[in-house]
């Protein structure tokens, strides 16, 4: 309860700050729509040549695009900004102020920034999902909806852990932006179901950079492809990733001597 209040306060402060820059909403809307248009044009190009891509039809791939946009929005609004902040904090010494606060350090560094306008992507992704699912015809039962929500949450948590681990490396590595850029590229691979990739790449996209769990698995839940095995695997991965990331964060902290002192 106490933690929820803390999160809420930080979120509200960030949101109020963002509300000052309303023109950014227009810029973000433009970028979101453009991103979607590029994605859709890519799909149209593929499906002008074939009826199905590795067993996925046009509407089913639209579901993948929807999930990809939605998760991408969450990463860009809630996860990434905080992780940049950690790296910057180490370089400039601001991190020390956070560490001296009498609350859980991992929680604090994860909620300091929130980019409100990036949520436009989440809305766009949801819109695409609703459109695609309603057209699919097979309908969505309560079971599918719950399974989807669960694996989506797992995907989000796995990604968060992954990012926290990368941000933690900034205790040792000074320039981390190249990692972020590489990640952006790798995330683009998630626009397509990971099943189309050769097995070594599929492995990498599942366990090294968890694009599969964040995008493909939730999309499978909505297109009646999810097997209980993958549901269990997603839950297991999420738990494991959270524990590992937390351990690594504390390990990093122990090796951190501060930059401002």
């Amino acid at each position, binding site marked *: 309860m106490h933690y929820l209040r803390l999160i809420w306060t930080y979120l509200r402060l960030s949101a109020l700050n963002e509300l000052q820059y309303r023109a950014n909403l227009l*810029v973000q809307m433009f970028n979101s729509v453009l991103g979607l248009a590029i994605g859709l044009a890519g799909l149209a190009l593929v499906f002008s040549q*074939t009826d199905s891509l590795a067993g996925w039809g046009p509407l089913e791939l639209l579901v993948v695009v929807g999930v990809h946009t939605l998760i991408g929005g969450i990463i860009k609004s809630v996860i990434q900004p905080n992780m940049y902040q950690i790296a910057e904090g180490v370089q400039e010494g601001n991190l020390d102020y956070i560490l001296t606060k009498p609350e859980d350090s991992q929680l604090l560094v994860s909620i300091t920034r929130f980019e409100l306008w990036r949520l436009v992507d989440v809305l766009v992704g949801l819109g695409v999902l609703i459109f695609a699912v309603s057209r699919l015809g097979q309908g969505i039962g309560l079971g599918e909806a719950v399974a989807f929500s669960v694996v989506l949450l797992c995907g989000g948590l796995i990604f968060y852990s992954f990012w926290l681990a990368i941000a933690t490396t900034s205790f040792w590595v000074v320039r981390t932006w*190249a990692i972020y850029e590489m990640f952006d590229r790798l995330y683009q691979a998630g626009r397509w179901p990971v099943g*189309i990739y050769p097995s070594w790449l599929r492995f990498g996209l599942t366990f090294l950079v968890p694009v599969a769990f964040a995008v493909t698995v939730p999309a499978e839940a909505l297109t009646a492809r999810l097997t209980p095995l993958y549901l269990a695997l997603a839950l297991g991965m999420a738990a494991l990733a959270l524990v590992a990331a937390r351990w690594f964060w504390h390990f990093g902290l122990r090796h951190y001597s501060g930059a401002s002192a």
Partner: protein
Amino acid sequence: MKHIAQVLLAAFKAHLIATFQYRVQEGMQMIGLLVESLIYLVVWTTVAKARGGEVGGFSTDEIAGYFIAWMFVRNITTGWSPYAMEWRIRRGDFNSLLLRPVHPIFADTSEMLASKAVAMITVIPAMIALALVFKPRFELVPWSLVALIPALILAFVLRYVLMYVLALTAFWTTRLGGLFELWYGVEFFFSGRVAPLTVLPEWAQQVANLLPFKWMFYFPLELLLGRSQPDEMLFGFAMQILWLTVMVLLIRFVWRRATRRYAAVGG
């Protein structure tokens, strides 16, 4: 002239050293490039297989060849990002550069060449690795490879000058994100990066012929793959030179206005 050569050489050396210092970063960028080509290699191979082994006049192994050669051409033709210019203008770093007695484009250019030289060290092994995995089919046509050299140089210069013009608009807006994204989006489809242009619908192929993007990427790529006919090659060179002339005229015009406009943020 000798003076400018000295400037170029000094900037080249300085940047070469800087790039080597941040090896990890270069490596990461390389992985990014590799992944982008890999995604579309896989997507179009899958499509070609579903169609019985052909898409847009490319067989499955030729698709692999296309996207492997893609990496090479892309590394050579990518210029330096307009975001860097925007950042420089916004931070005020541009002030001291403008005070120097040589045009900043010279130092920028040799920095560019230095990082390309370094990047090739990683691109070539990556291409070999992809070739081993995907077993592409290449057909090396000697005259086409000879024509490739000037085509690549022109493609690079054209893209570079174009980006420079685009970056200069930062003098007016100082916030450019939207414009660039739109630009990259159009380039993505009409340059042949997402797929061979022959996969595009007929009308889009016609549009691609008129836009500059095809001549900055697809044209040299086709020469490398030996897929061009002699008359197509001549037309390609003509289009490259035409666009380059337009851009050089534009850059002179814009530069003069831009420096007059420049307000020295952060002084």
